């Protein structure tokens, strides 16, 4: 059985009347890429901040590497790396100096630190920007510098708190590849995001949270199996009449039909040839359509079905 790296039990955090975390619990095993998924304000960052002892909490307990976490636990902090959603670097220091400074808070040996800093720079591919000041870097490069500052000391547990917010797709892919590599090198990763695609791509264990509570937990496949929806058939069709929609609802395995903006979404539960059945219906009733395709459920569907709302606002 893998060692438990992080264990949170019945955590309660209140901001006056607002309950940010409501008896929240989780366990993270060594070597996992643990995804903490939830909409904005669901309590992801609060969980992380409590875990790191930055925030005080009202109830519950937190153990890291088997020890109770507290602000004074410097031995535990030495094993943790944090990449926050806000870029945390000094504008007055160059790329190299920033990484060296923050690495120096963990690594005292100068030679070892120099080696680690060089490795971190290579890792985030900032070799050409060593002498650049943060203000001269693009948003994506700045995020990569932020990551380098958080991981240069080679921590065993790395927390990535929404590291790809406001990052271009190219840099985002680079960051995700880097995180996968860190995990391959032995680090346990905690990844918080409201981007379900990233979590699905990266994480081998996912916890979905909302309003400070755990909504569901498991692997991506396990989560999808928890819901009724197994397939959505989408048809681009114009001027569909109400009686046709009613008839489609009566097709095998169909449990929900929505028609908006000339897009018909048919949700199916079970069945292997749902798209064929729908196409046949259109053919038999001489209804013309532009396009028909099938979509497998996403984590958003999981969240939608459990909570009745979208994981994030439509972008």
């Amino acid at each position, binding site marked *: 059985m893998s060692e438990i790296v992080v264990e949170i039990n019945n955590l309660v955090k209140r901001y006056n009347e607002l309950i940010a975390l409501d008896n929240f619990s989780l366990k993270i095993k060594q070597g996992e890429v643990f995804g903490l998924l939830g909409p904005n304000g669901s309590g992801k960052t609060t969980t992380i*901040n409590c875990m790191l002892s930055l925030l005080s909490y009202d109830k519950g307990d937190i153990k890291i590497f088997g020890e109770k976490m507290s602000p004074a636990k*410097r031995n535990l*902090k030495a094993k943790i790396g944090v990449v926050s959603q806000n870029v945390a670097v000094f504008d007055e220091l160059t790329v190299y100096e920033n990484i060296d400074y923050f690495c120096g808070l963990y690594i005292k040996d100068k030679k070892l630190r120099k080696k680690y800093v060089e490795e971190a720079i290579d890792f985030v591919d900032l070799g050409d920007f060593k002498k650049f000041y943060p203000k001269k870097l693009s948003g994506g490069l700045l995020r990569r510098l932020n990551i380098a500052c958080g991981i240069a000391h080679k921590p065993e547990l790395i927390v990535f708190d929404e590291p790809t917010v406001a990052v271009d797709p190219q840099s985002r892919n680079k960051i995700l590849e880097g995180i996968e590599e860190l995990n391959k090198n032995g680090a346990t990763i905690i990844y918080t995001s409201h981007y379900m695609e990233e979590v699905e791509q990266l994480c081998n264990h996912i916890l979905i949270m909302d309003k400070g509570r755990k909504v569901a937990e498991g692997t991506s496949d396990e989560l999808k199996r928890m819901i009724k929806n197994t397939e959505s058939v989408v048809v681009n069709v114009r001027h569909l009449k109400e009686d046709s929609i009613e008839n489609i609802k009566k097709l095998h395995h169909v449990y929900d039909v929505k028609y908006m903006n000339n897009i018909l979404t048919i949700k199916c539960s079970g069945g292997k040839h749902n798209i064929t059945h729908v196409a046949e219906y259109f053919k038999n009733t001489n209804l013309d359509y532009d396009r028909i395709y099938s979509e497998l459920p996403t984590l958003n569907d999981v969240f939608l079905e459990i909570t009745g709302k979208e994981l994030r606002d439509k972008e």
Partner: protein
Amino acid sequence: MFLNVFATRLKINIRNKQAIGWSLLFSLALGTLFYAAFNSIYDNAKNTCVRVAVVESEDAALNSEMLKELEYEDGKKMLEVVEVQYDEAKELLKKDEDDKDKVKGIIDIRNVEDIKLILPREKKIESAAFISSGGIEESILSSIVSVFRQYSSIVTETIKKDPTKLEEVLKSFEDETNELVENKSISGDNKDPYVSYFYSLITMMAMMAAMAGASVPESSQANQSPVGARVDVSPVNKSLYDLAGLLSAIVVQTSITLIGLVYLVFVLKINFGGDLRYVFLTSILSTILGVSLGFFIYQFGRISKKARENIIMTIILGGGFLSGLMIANMKTIVEMKCPIVNRINPSAVISDAFYALNMYGVGDRYYKSLIYIVGLTIFCIISGLIMSRRRSYASL
């Protein structure tokens, strides 16, 4: 770790061109402005002889004699004393400007403990620290009366404690020697009424250093900045980390103060009077107090960053106001109504040290002020370090 943090924080502070620029600009520009504004007035002052009426009671001949000691400054006649009765003095004050008997003011020394300076508009000037709106002659009078009050109190004290020393004291006035009763000295008897403006400038420079002190906890506490959060999750010893940051801020701010002071002394040739080494010492200690004050205030984690900034500005400006940097006799009023404020208000403590240095020279009062400065500094640093120890925050 300590040296690494200190060296890097020093680099960060030095590269913060905006902060350094503003601090330097404040001292150099304001110093130049004061110099430009007062230099010509000061030159005029040196060539001005002010005719003044002195009203005394019969048993106060001693004071009149003492006042005459102040007639000459650097060999030039600054004061022409006319001894008259109060009613006659008022008549002389009312005379036309071109009348040769006209006096510019009345010094009423009938009550030794309440020496009054009466100006044409019946306005009393309580302190020499600031120029009155009446111009150069009134300022000279107020400056002289201020020194005269000191002389008078020393003589009164001598009479009470050891009358046998009176002759010695009076001789010391005549000879312009510096030895007075109870080791009091008037080596810093700089009667230049404008130098106090430059002392006020140094006091404000020192207090503005609080902003640099505030940057230390700002970059080491999670509830202050993202960098603070990064430091808070690291395994560093927070007290040592903050101490290293504080030391770097002190080095940079002290350098700025010294540059400003060197500019005032060697470029603008401001005569601070007394021993310059003590002016430099007081300026350095004051700057350290300013930095420490900012460090201390920013440790209050339960209030917002904006509120903290406002508190610092209130302490700098409000403290400056209460210490008389803006209104001359405010410090005296505070001393009468609530003296404790003058003991804990950093601006008051600093300005008092400069005042003591300027008026009495290096002596008990000056050392007492330095002890207050050092005491307040130690309080701010130790309290700040205690508060900065590892903690969790209620909110970020």
